[in-house]
């Protein structure tokens, strides 16, 4: 049996943060007698990730996603617990380990802003000891896949956010790491660019069998890329499994959208025949009903039979709504 690529046991990180009352007096007081408070950013987390898996790490702001990524990449020491990545203890930051991982962050740049990205890539290839022939080949493949050609001669500061993000990905991948930590890579990008990056990550993961942990606030990232999600809330891992299962578990409803062929159809009486069914919206003759999954077939059959229906569709509730519900309630 092969051991998992990433294995985490009882991982806990406690930060000591300075605490200060508002006002000048309190500021002066804190200069001489600072007060601290312990904040548990990550609390006894356990999970395993196999090589080649692509896992989405989601949760509201401040949930502990980035802290988890930073511990796994070796940037932070955990307060308790164990973590093994590719057989290494990350926070020892051995060069062998660092050559096998990569961290790409949506809100921070690893590139030199004054020079064209090509020159930064060159320096990185030296730092990671990539042989020249490999470097050329990797770079060409990445440039091709990300459609980068016209960008490579502009200084990084003159690139748009989306263009820069493509270059950050090249910088993070040109030494062919086995493990990729992506911290909100689609942050602030337009929809078209988000889709391009997702396509790229999908193809890259398939071709190179790279293990990916992705944190994001965009559910479209997760639905497109991650068969498995881990949901963190207040430092606790509250769900680990398939996204679809999560949606089913949390939203045992479907949305039935319908339109009548006559404008003044009243169907209040109709709805009351079904338990737990309610009308969510009604606008210009378009109605949305929330119906328990088990009742959907029966309800639609009856609808079509008894009322003048012009159009009808059955949908899952948007995943955002499901996630929002968990964030509000703090549990699955």
């Amino acid at each position, binding site marked *: 049996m092969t051991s998992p690529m990433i294995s985490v046991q009882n991982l806990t990180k406690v930060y000591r943060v300075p605490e200060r009352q508002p006002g000048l007096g309190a500021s002066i007081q804190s200069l001489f007698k600072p007060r601290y408070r312990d904040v548990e950013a990550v609390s006894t987390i356990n999970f395993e990730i196999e090589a080649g898996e692509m896992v989405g790490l989601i949760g509201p702001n401040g949930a502990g996603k980035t802290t988890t990524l930073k511990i796994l990449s070796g940037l932070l020491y955990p307060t308790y617990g164990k973590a093994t990545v590719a057989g290494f203890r990350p926070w020892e930051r051995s060069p062998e380990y660092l050559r096998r991982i990569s961290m790409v962050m949506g809100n*921070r740049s690893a590139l*030199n802003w004054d020079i064209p990205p090509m*020159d930064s890539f060159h320096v990185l290839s030296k730092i990671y000891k990539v042989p020249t022939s490999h470097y050329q080949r990797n770079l060409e493949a990445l440039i091709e896949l990300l459609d980068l050609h016209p960008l490579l001669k502009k200084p990084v500061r003159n690139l748009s956010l989306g263009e820069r993000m493509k270059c950050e990905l090249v910088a993070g991948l040109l030494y062919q790491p086995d493990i990729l930590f992506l911290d909100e890579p689609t942050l602030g990008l337009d929809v078209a660019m988000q889709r391009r990056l997702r396509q790229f990550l999908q193809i890259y993961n398939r071709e190179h069998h790279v293990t990916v942990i992705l944190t994001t606030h965009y559910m479209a990232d997760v639905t497109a890329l991650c068969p498995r999600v881990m949901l963190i809330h207040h430092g606790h891992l509250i769900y680990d499994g398939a996204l679809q299962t999560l949606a089913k578990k949390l939203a045992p409803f479907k949305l039935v959208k319908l339109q009548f062929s006559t404008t003044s159809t009243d169907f209040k009486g109709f709805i009351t025949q079904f338990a737990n069914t309610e009308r969510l919206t009604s606008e210009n003759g378009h109605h949305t009903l929330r119906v328990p999954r088990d009742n959907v077939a029966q309800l639609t059959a009856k609808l079509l039979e008894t009322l003048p229906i012009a159009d009808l569709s059955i949908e899952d509730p948007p995943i955002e709504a499901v996630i929002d519900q968990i964030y509000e309630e703090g549990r699955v």
Partner: protein
Amino acid sequence: MFYIKLILAFFKTSTQSELAYRSNFFIRLLNSFLNLLTGVLSLVVIFNQVETLQGWDMPSALALLGIYLLLGALRELFIGPSLESVTGMDGEIWTGTFDFTLLRPVDKQFLLSFRHWRIFALFDLLLALVVLGAAMGLLGSDLSFGAVLSFILMLLAGLVLLYAALLAFSALVFWNSGFLFTWIINDLFQLARYPVSLYPNWLRLILTWIIPVGLMTTIPAQALIGTLSPWMTALTLLFSLSSLFAASILLQHGLRKYTSASS
């Protein structure tokens, strides 16, 4: 070999970014000339009034000025810009991009010390060598081979001391990101322009053993003019090496302490 290749790559990219701001070039040039001019002029003024000052004559004071300019140029060339890019205002610690530096599979002290180069400082280096050459020319027949050898050794020790002091003060930033103390060294280093023997006793002791800017320039100059005792040579060597060691330890502790700015 790996590290030399890296330095070359860093030098190349730094030069590219420097050249992106062309107007800097002329300002820097003016700055270098003014620095040289004020240094030489003050010596000319002083030694027009007196033959020697606490045992220092014009050629030896000029040699000391050359050493001061040389160390300053080397600081400007890579030590200063590299350390400041991490710990200074707008440095990597503040912006959080230090995370990437920590993740590079390269010795962190090396990366912190050699990553950024200011190519214009090569001009300062040239000026410093000219001043040093002129001083050696004036010293002429007084120079022995042994003295030159000891001078080179002490010059290296002075450079190591300067580097260790800057590294140690930079490392303090890991304890509190408000500690931007390298300016203390930069300001005190101005005092190294003149021999430490010119300063009152208490200040001389501080400048020799506590913040050793005096050692950095006075000792190599004494080695050159042949007035440095062997035990002082040994002591300076020992002191510079142990300072380097202590500064490295401090940096390692700082790195361990570092918890990056939360996203």
